[in-house]
C-alpha cells in the first residue's frame, strides 16, 4: 500500500466520520439546521431523515474508498501534487455537503407542509443575570499554554547561538530540509511569534464570544439559562487545552526547524510530522469529549427535576428565513447581534452577515491578506 493511498483512505475516513457526526452535534430542536418546535424533535420525518442521511454518508464513504483502492491498483502512482492527492476526499466532502443540504430541505418542506408551528405562540427569552452577574471564566486554565510558550522561547534563546547559517522551511506541519532560508532573528523565532499570537488571540476571542447573545430556549427559559451558565464556565477548558496543544505542536515543529535531535536527524520525516500532529489530534479529541458531554449551549447537561417539569406558553421563535446554506450562514439586518451561535457544527459561532461590522471586517481582511502575503515573501 503506497503512502498517497494511505493518506487518501485516512482523509476519506475523516470526511465520512465528520459527515456522519455533523447532524448528531446539533441540538434536537435544530435537526440539519432547521428550527422545529420541541414536540417535533423526534417526529418520524426527522428521525427518518437522520437515518437516511447516515446510510447515504456511510455508503458514499465506502464507495469512495473502494474507487480509490481500485484506481490506485490500476495506476500505482496517479498523483502528481499533494492537492491532487486529496481529490477523492474533497469530492466526497462536497457530496456529503450536498446530502446535508438535501436533508435540510426535506425537513423544511415537511415542516411547511404539515404546519408544525401552527397554533404555537412564538417568543424569545433572555436572562438579565447573564449580563449583570457575569460568569467568571476560569482563566488559570490558560497557564499550560503560557508555559509551553515560555519553554519554546527559552529553548530558542539557548539554541540561537548554535543555529546553522540557513534553516529549513515549514510547509504546513511538514519540514522541507532542501528548501532553506537565511537564519535571522525573525526566521528563527517565527514559531515563538506564532505561539504568542495564539496565546493572546484565543483568550481574546473567548472573551468576545462568551459575551455574544446567549442561546436560550423560550420553551425552557430557566433550565436553558442555568445550563448556559454552566456551558460558559466550562467552555474555557477545551479552548485553553486546544491552545496548549497548538503551542506544543509549534514547539515540536520549532525543534525540527532548529534541527534539534532527535526530531531532526534520526527520526524520519514521516513519523516526525505525525508526532508534530499528535497534540492537535489530542485537542480534537478534547473538543469531541466536550461536545458530547456538554453540547452546544449546554444542551447535553442533565436537567434538574424542576427544569424537566418546566413549562412555558411559548416556543422559540422560528427564524429559518435568516439562515442560509443549510443553516450555516446567518444574515439578519434587523438583529443587532454580531456573533450568533452556529446552528450546525457543534459549539461554534458565526458572524451575522446582516451586520455592518461583519462586512467591515471582511473588507479589512480582503485588503490585508494580499499585503501580509507580499510581506512574507
Amino acid at each position: 500500500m503506497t503512502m498517497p493511498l494511505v493518506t487518501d483512505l485516512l482523509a476519506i475516513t475523516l470526511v465520512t466520520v465528520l459527515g456522519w457526526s455533523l447532524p448528531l452535534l446539533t441540538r434536537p430542536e435544530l435537526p440539519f439546521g432547521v428550527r422545529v418546535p420541541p414536540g417535533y424533535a423526534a417526529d418520524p420525518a426527522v428521525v427518518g431523515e437522520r437515518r437516511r442521511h447516515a446510510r447515504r454518508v456511510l455508503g458514499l464513504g465506502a464507495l469512495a474508498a473502494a474507487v480509490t483502492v481500485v484506481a490506485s491498483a490500476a495506476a500505482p502512482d496517479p498523483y502528481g501534487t499533494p492537492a491532487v492527492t486529496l481529490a477523492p476526499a474533497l469530492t466526497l466532502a462536497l457530496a456529503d455537503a450536498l446530502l446535508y443540504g438535501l436533508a435540510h430541505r426535506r425537513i423544511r418542506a415537511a415542516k411547511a407542509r404539515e404546519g408544525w408551528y401552527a397554533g404555537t405562540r412564538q417568543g424569545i427569552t433572555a436572562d438579565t443575570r447573564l449580563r449583570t452577574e457575569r460568569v467568571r471564566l476560569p482563566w488559570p486554565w490558560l497557564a499550560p499554554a503560557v508555559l509551553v510558550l515560555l519553554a519554546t522561547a527559552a529553548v530558542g534563546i539557548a539554541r540561537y547561538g548554535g543555529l546553522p547559517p540557513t534553516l529549513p522551511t515549514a510547509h504546513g506541519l511538514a519540514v522541507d530540509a532542501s528548501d532553506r532560508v537565511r537564519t535571522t532573528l525573525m526566521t528563527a523565532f517565527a514559531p515563538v511569534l506564532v505561539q504568542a499570537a495564539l496565546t493572546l488571540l484565543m483568550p481574546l476571542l473567548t472573551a468576545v464570544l462568551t459575551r455574544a447573545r446567549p442561546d436560550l430556549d423560550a420553551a425552557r427559559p430557566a433550565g436553558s439559562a442555568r445550563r448556559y451558565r454552566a456551558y460558559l464556565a466550562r467552555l474555557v477548558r477545551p479552548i485553553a487545552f486546544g491552545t496548549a496543544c497548538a503551542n506544543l505542536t509549534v514547539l515540536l515543529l520549532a525543534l525540527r526547524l532548529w534541527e534539534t535531535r532527535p526530531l531532526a536527524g534520526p527520526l524520519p520525516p514521516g513519523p516526525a510530522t505525525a508526532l508534530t500532529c499528535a497534540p492537535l489530534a489530542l485537542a480534537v479529541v478534547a473538543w469531541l469529549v466536550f461536545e458530547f458531554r456538554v453540547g452546544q449551549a449546554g444542551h447535553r447537561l442533565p436537567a434538574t427535576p424542576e427544569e424537566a417539569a418546566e413549562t412555558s406558553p411559548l416556543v422559540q421563535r422560528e427564524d429559518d428565513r435568516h439562515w442560509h446554506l443549510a443553516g450555516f450562514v446567518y444574515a439578519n439586518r434587523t438583529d443587532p447581534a454580531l456573533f450568533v451561535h452556529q446552528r450546525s457544527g457543534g459549539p461554534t459561532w458565526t458572524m451575522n452577515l446582516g451586520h455592518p461590522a461583519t462586512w467591515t471586517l471582511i473588507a479589512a481582511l480582503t485588503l490585508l491578506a494580499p499585503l501580509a502575503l507580499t510581506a512574507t515573501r
Partner: protein
Amino acid sequence: MQLSLDADSETPIYQQIRDRIVEAIATGELVAGSALPSTRQLGTDLAINFHTVNKAYDLLRQEGLIRVNRKSGAVVRRDPRSGPPEAPFPDDWQARLRTLLAEAAAQGVDQDEVRRRVGGVLDTFTARDLTETETETEVEAETKTEGARA
C-alpha cells in the same frame, strides 16, 4: 430575571419588557439596587433594536421604578419594601384598575370569580416575600441555637 417576549402578542415589545420588569419587582426577583442590563445588551439578547429597550426603560423611569444614569446604567429604584408610593400613583392606578375590572364585568365574569383571581395574582407577589421571611427566621433560629450550644 427571565425576560420572555411573546412575538405573536398584540402588546408592543417595549410594553412587554416594561411589564416583565414590573412583575419581577413585584415578585421580589428584582429589588431596589438591582442592576439591569444596558439597552444595547438587552437589545442584542432579545434580537430587537436598542431603541425599543430604551423606550421601555424610559417608561419605567417616568414611573419612578428605575433610575438611569451614565455611570451605573439602569438600576431598580423602588420595590415592595420601599414604602407607600408617591401621591398621584394610587389615583392613576385606580383609574386603570377600574377599566380592567369593568372589562371583566362587561364580559360577565362573576364578582366572586374576579375576587378569587385577583387574590391568586396577589398571592404570587407575596409568596416570595413570605418565603424570604421564613428563610430569614429559620436562619436566625439556627444562629441562636448554635449560639446557645456554644
